[in-house]
């Protein structure tokens, strides 16, 4: 059902150096239902990742996105797959939003062949270049200049597309943000810097890490918008607006006011530096999925039962993907040495593998 529907954003946009877009967002029943399904999938996926981690099937770091789904979903609704996205280590849902599959997610998390990085990247390093997703970066802040570089290449190639570079409130203090933003502004790069402000960088509340937590004003001289990041429609509106702006005038900053329900990563209970009340308050009042559920019900686009069914379907999809991922084999031992260089180790490239002869003995 694609009958147009206009819905007001939860709160007005706050703008800096620009006029805010309208609060009335165009959507369709179809879009709302797909928002619901996709966000439910993301939520379910992250909960499942949590369980897999606890079952020791996922190793190392694992940063979950539940609570922040509206950013990934709303952004995709406002742009196309020709636009580029780059983000940090909290990348599972961003990858899914770009068209990645549950099987790729779970396989990667478990270090299997069918993972989006064939098991070589892990939780923090998902990519999907064919639809413009450039990772998945583990170093706080690094993706911001990298994203501006993607935007540079888009402009250089006259592609008329833009890049969204996502980072956290903690990352927003990084010097490389200021360096990249200055260059992006000097060169009018079609870069949108998206600060996913979930109000904590690990255990540090935003105000303890930033003298000025107005992230949408980070570059004095660059227009910015503060957006309710729990409202997928507001995110969509803002991203559309920012894309148009960026193609014409260069960079823009979007601050998404959002929240992560989980701790920072699996080793963080997430409850020592914030109250349980704070978390449950957000869940009750601002949850991005519930917001869409209410809209759907209020506009009679589906029944409660239908939505529950979608959730059931989603749960099954996730379970099926996990089952399949568990059957995906570990990468071949020989994969240890592939992809270090594009052309692999040819005659020209002397691998020092004999340094650990054992490897050669065991696997080559």
């Amino acid at each position, binding site marked *: 059902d694609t009958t147009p529907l206009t819905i007001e954003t939860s709160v007005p946009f706050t703008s800096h150096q620009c006029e805010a877009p309208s609060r009335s967002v165009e959507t369709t029943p179809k879009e709302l239902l797909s928002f619901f399904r996709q966000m439910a999938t993301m939520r379910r996926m992250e909960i499942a990742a949590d369980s897999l981690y606890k079952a020791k099937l*996922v*190793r*190392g*770091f694992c940063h979950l996105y539940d609570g922040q789904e509206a950013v990934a979903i709303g952004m995709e609704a406002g742009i196309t797959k020709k636009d580029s996205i780059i983000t940090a280590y909290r990348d599972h849902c961003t990858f899914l939003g770009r068209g990645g599959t549950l099987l790729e997610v779970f396989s*990667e998390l478990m*270090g*299997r062949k069918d993972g989006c*990085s064939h*098991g*070589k*990247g*892990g*939780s*923090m*390093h998902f990519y999907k270049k064919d639809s413009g997703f450039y990772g998945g*970066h*583990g*170093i*706080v*802040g690094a993706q911001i200049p990298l994203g501006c570089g993607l935007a540079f290449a888009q402009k250089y190639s006259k592609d008329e597309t833009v890049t969204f570079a996502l980072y956290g409130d*903690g*990352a927003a*203090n*990084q*010097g490389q943000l200021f360096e990249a933003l200055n260059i992006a502004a000097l060169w009018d790069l079609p870069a949108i810097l998206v600060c996913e402000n979930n109000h904590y*960088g*690990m*255990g*540090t509340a935003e105000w*303890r*890490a*930033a003298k000025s937590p107005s992230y949408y004003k980070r570059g004095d001289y660059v227009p910015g918008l503060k957006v309710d990041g729990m409202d997928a429609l507001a995110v969509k509106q803002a991203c559309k607006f920012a894309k148009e702006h960026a193609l014409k005038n260069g960079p823009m900053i979007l601050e998404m006011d959002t929240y992560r329900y989980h701790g920072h990563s699996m080793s963080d209970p997430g409850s*020592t*530096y914030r109250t349980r009340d704070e978390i449950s308050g957000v869940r009750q009042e601002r949850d991005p999925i519930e917001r869409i559920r209410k809209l759907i019900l209020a506009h009679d686009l589906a029944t409660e039962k239908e939505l529950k069914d979608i959730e059931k379907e989603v749960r099954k999809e996730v379970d099926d993907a996990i089952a399949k991922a568990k059957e995906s084999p*570990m*990468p071949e*031992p020989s*994969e*240890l*040495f592939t992809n*270090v260089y594009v052309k692999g180790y040819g005659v020209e490239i002397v*691998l*020092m*593998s*004999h*340094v*650990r*002869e*054992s*490897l050669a*003995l*065991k*696997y080559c």
Partner: protein
Amino acid sequence: KQMMVREALNSALDEEMSADPKVFLMGEEVGEYQGAYKISKGLLEKYGPERVLDTPITEAGFTGIGVGAAYYGLKPVVEFMTFNFSMQAIDHIINSAAKSNYMSSGQISVPIVFRGPNGAAAGVGAQHSQCYAAWYASVPGLKVLSPYSSEDARGLLKAAIRDPDPVVFLENELLYGESFPVSAEVLDSSFCLPIGKAKIEREGKDVTITAFSKIVGLSLKAAEILAKEGISAEVINLRSIRPLDRSTINASVRKTNRLVTVEEGFPQHGVGAEICASVIEESFGYLDAPVERIAGADVPMPYAANLERMAVPQVEDIVRAAKRACYRSVPMAAAA
């Protein structure tokens, strides 16, 4: 008595902060969160926010601030959540810290410690697993320590904090939770180890194995296996990568006539290469077999468990290398 490495580091920090009001700790999550790996647990409560400082995630900025404070005469301990993030601040470690005393002909000394976990943890992938021992230890002006046991951790960290020069202190996340026996001497607050001295963890006569940090443990295990097969391995815990204890290493090789170097980092220009060169320079005539160099695989760290295991040295690799060094007296190339 047993003590965890985590406790050893924590108590060393605690004691040095209590002994010298110029010592302070700064870094991400070191205060209210009690440290990402809980090394600084309790210190904020004990010493207050003036001496235990939570920083934003801005390594270049806070490291520069730490170095500047050291210029002034304070004794900062800067924690990197892991040493991978020290690359954002490496210019301050090298150009601002290591070189200042020299450039100023001794006017500006820099009594600072940079510490945190280094090298591979478990399943954290390519960007979070690099070993920086060889890089930092190549730089004159820096001292580079890497503890293995709780004794090392206490004695070396206390030495690092008391030292008037910049010290890079490379810990290992996987050791934090390991327990080691500690003597009363080690537990005494005056305990301190000399910088630049290796420790012979196990004496032996057939082959010398050099290692540092976590790999010392693997080497000791390898030595046990080798003992069962009649090979007596001497295991050297380097403790200090710069200065490197060339005399202990060479003395051992002159005794055993065989050398296996082991490290987790990348092979090229690694610690093993340096040890090999040092031994060739000083004890060439004593070597009965080519030096065996075991290192991390020459690839970025993969995530998948099976590949990761292949990428870091295992006990069996050390055993095999030691056997090669002992049984074979012809050059390796000829054997290969």
